């Protein structure tokens, strides 16, 4: 099978799995998850094959795998759809495939496959646990299987389809399609436990917020199409097109067309990747099951946002020569950097283990966006991938932790204890060793622990880029953000795993099944090693031991190959300092904190995320309600329109009366109606005897008529 065909096929298995599960195997849990995981595996296989074929191709950047077909006739031109795997998308495909497969596998365990059905579980609520009686007649409360198990796999299947479509698509249109499919799926999955009001709200919130972004993105796409007449990347990113786009003024804020388009598209990304100011949905998205969090926040959706910007990078950097940033780029850079620092500060004060990760995700995405904003293409991609790995790892790890805690909760039966609150944990390293070590690796990677972890290399590269091109503001902000990252990561690890159990539940937590731990291990492997493919040449000691393969490979995507940065100590020291310092202080500050009260950083402003939700509620939602309920409904509808309509009533009545008396009754009824009826009646009365009800007589009659008419026709007309 040619590589192109293979690429076409990659997204399909999850879709098929979705259809199969929804249509047929909904009843059968085992079959459903086998289908889903199998499909994920198939896609993974295809992705791997494609990836390695890509890696082994010479000058892959110049001629990537590309195939496209005509799809929609638009006048005399065609709207093409197709698949394109260039180095970047190949790299992205790699991690997407891995994370998705891992998450699918993990979900099996997370939803307690093989456990008994819950006593009072019902659809739309998380399982409450089941009571089983063992051989000795003791009653135990154990985790119970998810009631909507199959449905979950169907959804993530669709989700995976969306992501693969987005990655392999060679044009903005199919990219957008995948994008929207994921939007839908995130809605479905965040609101997966739809009987929980909070989950419902979160789902709607996520959907709406991202939708805002998507509208702008669609505008951008439309603008791009009207400007260039195509949506295929490789046709847009030709020298002259870019040049034209870059120079033509759009007439908005003195932006160039390219600038405007890329900003519009970027707003879509802001929504999808939860950048400031549209970041609010992501923390609430934690209402969904943890694999979903991993799915949305690591592997797919948020990455999709960044991936879109990466795809549009040439457009973003149109007429960008070396130093001073274009308006678009500076906007992007600013948003990214600001989000990074801002989310990091919030993360410091969160106690929900998953929310911390959520905010850290936001801030890490900020890193990538900022990197793109300053034109550090390779660094951004690099961080995107490493982050995907270790963030997926962290989420799955946290899920594992929560799972363990739930086990404890069920054991003690004290349901008031929130199994996600870090202050209810502590000392879990003994209970759940695998989870602990993998989580530790993930955490260190996140906080950029030097040399070993992947996070260090990617983050360091971003910082180095920011420094090397002299974007001081960005550099400093990111450095501070990195420090905070390390800090809250260590805080999280300390609170969760180190020290002594703070609750009985924590004491009774224990390790999760292999389906959940295996992905952790595999992902942690990548969380460490994936950094080593991107070590800069000029790095002291290590530089050049392994060639900077990643830079070569991904850099090949761009038209002009980005030159490797010359090495400088300052960013290196900075990243070392912030990482180690953050980790150290985090440990120092929280090593013997035993209750929320002793946490010094619980500033209300941080705990309440700078009151963003409240602000949005006041600014947008309340007015919207007022508009719909009071203004439109009460004043316009009931008052104005109904008022007018009520005038018509009497008039119509009068007209109707007149018509009835002077036209209907005398003319229509008596003359037309009764008259015709009477005549028809008389006619029928006289014709009645002919209808004897005897089929043969009818036949004879018709034959006679036939002969008469036929004879007449024959003799009069023909002869």
């Amino acid at each position, binding site marked *: 099978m040619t590589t192109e065909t293979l690429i076409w096929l990659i997204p399909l298995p999850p879709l098929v799995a979705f259809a199969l599960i929804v249509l047929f195997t909904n009843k059968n849990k085992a079959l459903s998850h086998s289908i889903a995981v199998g499909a994920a595996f198939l896609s993974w296989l295809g992705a791997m094959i494609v990836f390695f074929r890509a890696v082994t191709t010479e000058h892959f950047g110049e001629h990537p795998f590309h195939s496209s077909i005509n799809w929609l006739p638009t006048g005399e031109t065609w709207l093409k759809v197709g698949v394109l795997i260039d180095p970047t998308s190949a790299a992205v495909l790699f991690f997407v495939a891995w994370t998705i497969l891992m998450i699918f596998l993990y979900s099996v365990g997370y939803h307690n496959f093989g456990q008994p059905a819950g006593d009072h579980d019902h659809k739309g609520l998380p399982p409450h646990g089941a009571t089983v009686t063992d051989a000795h007649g003791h009653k135990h409360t154990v985790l119970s299987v998810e009631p909507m198990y199959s449905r979950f796999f169907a959804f993530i299947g669709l989700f995976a389809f969306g992501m693969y479509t987005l990655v392999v698509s060679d044009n903005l249109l199919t990219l957008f399609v995948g994008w929207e499919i994921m939007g839908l799926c995130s809605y479905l999955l965040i609101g997966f436990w739809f009987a929980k009001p909070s989950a419902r709200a979160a789902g709607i919130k996520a959907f709406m917020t991202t939708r805002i972004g998507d509208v702008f993105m669609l505008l951008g796409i439309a603008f791009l199409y009207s400007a260039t007449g195509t949506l295929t990347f490789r046709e847009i990113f030709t020298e002259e097109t870019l040049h034209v786009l870059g120079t033509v003024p759009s007439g908005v804020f003195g932006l160039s067309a390219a600038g405007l388009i890329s900003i519009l598209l970027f707003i879509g990304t802001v929504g999808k990747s939860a950048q400031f100011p549209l970041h609010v949905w992501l923390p609430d998205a934690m209402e969904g099951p943890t694999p979903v969090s991993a799915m949305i926040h690591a592997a797919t959706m948020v990455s999709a946002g960044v991936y879109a910007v990466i795809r549009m990078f040439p457009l973003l950097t149109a007429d960008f020569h070396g130093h001073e940033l274009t308006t678009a780029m500076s906007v992007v850079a600013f948003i990214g950097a600001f989000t990074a620092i801002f989310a990091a500060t919030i993360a410091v004060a969160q106690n929900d283990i998953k929310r911390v990760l959520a905010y850290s995700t936001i801030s890490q995405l900020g890193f990538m966006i900022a990197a793109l904003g300053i034109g550090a293409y390779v660094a951004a991609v690099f961080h995107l991938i490493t982050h995907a790995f270790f963030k997926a790892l962290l989420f799955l790890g946290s899920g594992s932790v929560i799972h363990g805690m739930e086990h404890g909760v069920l054991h003690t039966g004290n349901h008031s204890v929130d199994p996600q609150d870090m202050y209810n944990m502590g000392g879990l390293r003994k209970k759940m060793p695998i989870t602990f070590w993998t989580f530790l690796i993930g955490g260190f990677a996140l906080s950029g622990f030097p040399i070993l972890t992947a996070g260090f290399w990617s983050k360091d590269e971003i910082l180095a880029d920011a420094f090397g091109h002299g974007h001081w503001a960005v550099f400093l902000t990111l450095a501070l953000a990195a420090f905070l990252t390390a800090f809250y990561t260590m805080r999280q690890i300390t609170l969760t795993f180190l020290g002594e159990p703070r609750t009985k539940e924590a004491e009774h937590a224990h390790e999760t099944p292999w389906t959940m731990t295996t992905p952790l291990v595999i992902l942690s492997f990548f969380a460490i090693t994936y950094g080593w493919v991107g070590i800069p040449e000029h790095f002291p000691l290590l530089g050049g031991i392994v060639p900077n393969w990643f830079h070569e490979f991904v850099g090949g995507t761009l038209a002009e190959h980005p030159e490797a940065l010359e090495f400088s100590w300052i960013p290196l020291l900075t990243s070392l300092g912030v990482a180690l310092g953050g980790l150290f202080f985090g440990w120092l500050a929280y090593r013997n904190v035993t209750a929320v009260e002793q946490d010094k950083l619980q500033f209300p402003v941080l705990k309440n995320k700078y009151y963003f939700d409240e602000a949005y509620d006041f600014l947008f939602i309340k007015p919207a309600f007022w508009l719909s309920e009071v203004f439109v409904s009460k004043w316009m509808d009931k008052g104005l329109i109904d008022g007018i309509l009520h005038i018509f009533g009497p008039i119509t009545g009068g007209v109707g009366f007149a018509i009835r008396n002077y036209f209907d009754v005398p003319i229509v009824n008596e003359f037309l109606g009764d008259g015709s009826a009477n005549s028809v009646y008389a006619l029928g009365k006289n014709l009645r005897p002919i209808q004897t009800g005897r089929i*043969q*007589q009818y036949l*004879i009659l018709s*034959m*006679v008529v036939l*002969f008469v008419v*036929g004879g007449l026709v024959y003799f009069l007309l023909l002869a």
Partner: protein
Amino acid sequence: MTAEQIIFLIVGAVTLASALMVVTARDLVHAALWLVAALFGVAIVYTLLNAGFLAVVQVVVYIGAIAILFIFAVMLTRRQAAKDTGPALNQNWWLGALLAVLTFGGLVALLQTWSGFSKTASAIPSGFDAVNQLGSALVSPAGYVLPFEVASVLLLAALVGAVYLAFNKK
């Protein structure tokens, strides 16, 4: 007068005669049996027309299935199992007869005026396999596969309908 013509005349006479018996015989079972005879005649006519396959199919379908079906139906719809009562024809049978004669006359008269009325058959080219041709014509997309399929669907529908109709609802 070739042998072929003699055979044809005999067969045609027999066919028509038994057809007449079909429509006149008082006892319906006899009528059905006469129908069998008539259909045999038609089958032989097919063979005279070098359509052996059709002849055999004629025997299989009509005599093997349809005639038997008729006999069944006759036996199942007898007032008393003995014989059919009442006249075989209805009271305006003469009209029917008149119409039939008219039809025959009309048809022949019309055919007379047609140029190709009394043309003779061209010899069959050697190596011409009618069955083969027929088969490929029936199932080739260029041929008649669609009508063929439709006919099969029709058969199925008829099957279901017949079962439903004759099903004795308690």
